[in-house]
């Protein structure tokens, strides 16, 4: 049917019908300008990670791989990176799941407390993380909960919730409910409808929400400082090491490696996807 075709077409990002001629070169230019600005500091970091100087300043002193060598033999740093990856992975999944749930509730149901739920889901944006961190610290200690990466992950899921909710909500709100009603008229239960109609429609938004939640968690420091217990996440480790000016280039090398590794993975994934028929 035309509706289905349109829906399917609209679902895949980038293949929505093009409103004609709205300045493709200009748009492309804006995108790449933004990308350039985003990656410029990373390029600078790359340069400094190979620079034989402990301070991030020009003029450059000379090429060296010393910082990368030291990086690989600093277990505390490597552990911190691993911890961050784990925490971000777990919390982003939780935040996305919760955000999807809230978005569906708010956009598809009428109930008392609907505005309240939406407001509460967005409320973490209003609270400075350091305040939430201190409060959670006191609460967890009072309840006898051991502080660990788990408590950090929980806190991260809460603070990422506004982002996931807003992104998925923006998508679900614009979508019409007729498809779901049609599916239910055809005999599908609501869970099945969600699974087969709503979630696929929202899939790009859910993916975007997940990446956002991951990013929010990975770079977050205030909550991790308070709630991490024995295991440091990468930003906390960085913060602690900044006191020691000598270790700065090693930290820079770590950031560059992380970036390089991630970019490589993504470009690989893209290459694989393009090879598939």
């Amino acid at each position, binding site marked *: 049917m035309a509706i289905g075709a*349109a829906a399917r077409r*609209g679902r895949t*990002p*980038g*293949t*929505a019908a093009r*409103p*004609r*001629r*709205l300045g493709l070169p200009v748009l*492309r230019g*804006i*995108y790449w300008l*933004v*990308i350039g600005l985003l*990656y410029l500091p*990373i390029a*600078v970091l790359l340069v400094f990670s190979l620079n034989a100087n402990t301070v991030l*300043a*020009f003029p450059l002193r000379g090429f060296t791989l010393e910082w990368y060598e030291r990086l690989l033999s600093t277990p505390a740093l490597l552990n911190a990176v691993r911890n961050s990856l784990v925490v971000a992975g777990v919390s982003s999944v939780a935040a996305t799941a*919760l955000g999807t*749930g809230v978005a569906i509730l708010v*956009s*598809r*149901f009428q109930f008392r407390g609907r505005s309240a*739920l*939406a407001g*509460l*889901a*967005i*409320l973490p*944006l*209003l609270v*400075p993380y*350091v305040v939430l961190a*201190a*409060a959670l610290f006191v*609460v967890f200690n009072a309840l006898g909960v051991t502080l660990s990466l788990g408590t950090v992950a929980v*806190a991260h899921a809460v603070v990422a919730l506004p*982002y996931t909710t*807003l*992104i998925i909500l923006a*998508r679900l*709100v*614009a979508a019409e*409910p007729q498809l779901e*009603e049609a599916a239910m008229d055809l005999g599908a239960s*609501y*869970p099945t409808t*969600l699974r087969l109609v709503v979630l696929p429609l929202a899939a*790009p*938004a859910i993916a975007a929400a997940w990446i956002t939640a991951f990013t929010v968690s990975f*770079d977050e420091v205030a909550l991790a400082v308070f709630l991490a217990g024995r295991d440091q996440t990468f*930003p906390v480790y*960085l913060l602690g090491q900044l006191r020691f000016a000598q270790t700065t280039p090693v930290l820079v090398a770590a*950031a560059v490696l*992380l*970036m390089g590794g*991630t970019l490589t993975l993504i470009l690989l994934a*893209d290459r694989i996807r393009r090879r598939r028929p």
Partner: protein
Amino acid sequence: MTTGIASKPPGEATRGRRLDPRRGTFWALSIPSWLVVSLLLVGPLALMVAFSFRPDMRGALLAPFEPSLRQFEQIAESGAYLRLLGTSALMALAVATIATLAAYPVAYFLVFRAGRRAALYLVLLLVPFWTSYVLRVAAWKVMLGSDGVINTALLGLGVIGEPLDALLYNRTAVIVTLVYVWIPFASLPILAALGRIDIRLHEAAADLYASPFEQFRRVTLPLSLPGIAAAFLMVFIPTVGEYVTPLLVGGTGGSMYGNTIYSFFSRAANWPLGSALSTVMLLVTVGLVLVGLRIVRPRRLLGT
């Protein structure tokens, strides 16, 4: 264009009288959502507000205490904190507006022009945020500093005679940096909203002889308003309490309200005053958002 569930096609009116067949799902989704927000958010928030009424840090933190308005009195007497809150709110307004405007073309590009690589392009936007923010800003400072790339280039080209001091350590530097940081995130809700626009609407508009600009103005833009609203909120609200960027590039004149709160927690160990400042910020920001929503009339935006 109607959105949300408030509107039902005619003839469906009878459906509401029977039990909503979706109620199982409703409860399955509701219970975790409410549990999480109340235990992990409302609880600590209530604690924070309670702390605001604490006279000082003495004694066990969870022990009962004599409530006192001392912290709020101090804030009112000082005047400086409230003025800073006002300035921070204005800065946040500027950042949110510019970032949302700049993010729109990015989102538009990704949805309508990026083709099959849209997912890749989207991820490319976000990946830089997996480097430490502190290090990235350090790199920016190097570029903007008096010895940095920009000044060296301008000096070399003879455009300026002396290094520019004004690129760093002031309020403008804070706003510019914040806008730059927020653009990728702000593009996400807009992207989510744009992606759902039905192609037949564009075809219909074209059939009615609408120019591309009119297509945009009368079809695309209104349909993407929920995304724009979401993006604006997502940027504005946390920026009022922002502290990391002002700390790094604000110098002495660019500090924001969030810096004061952060300092009272992490440098002064004065949680009651920090909490009181946070409570004030919470009330003011919620107030601003509610007023703003009233002006923009959310019914059409969020389908409420």
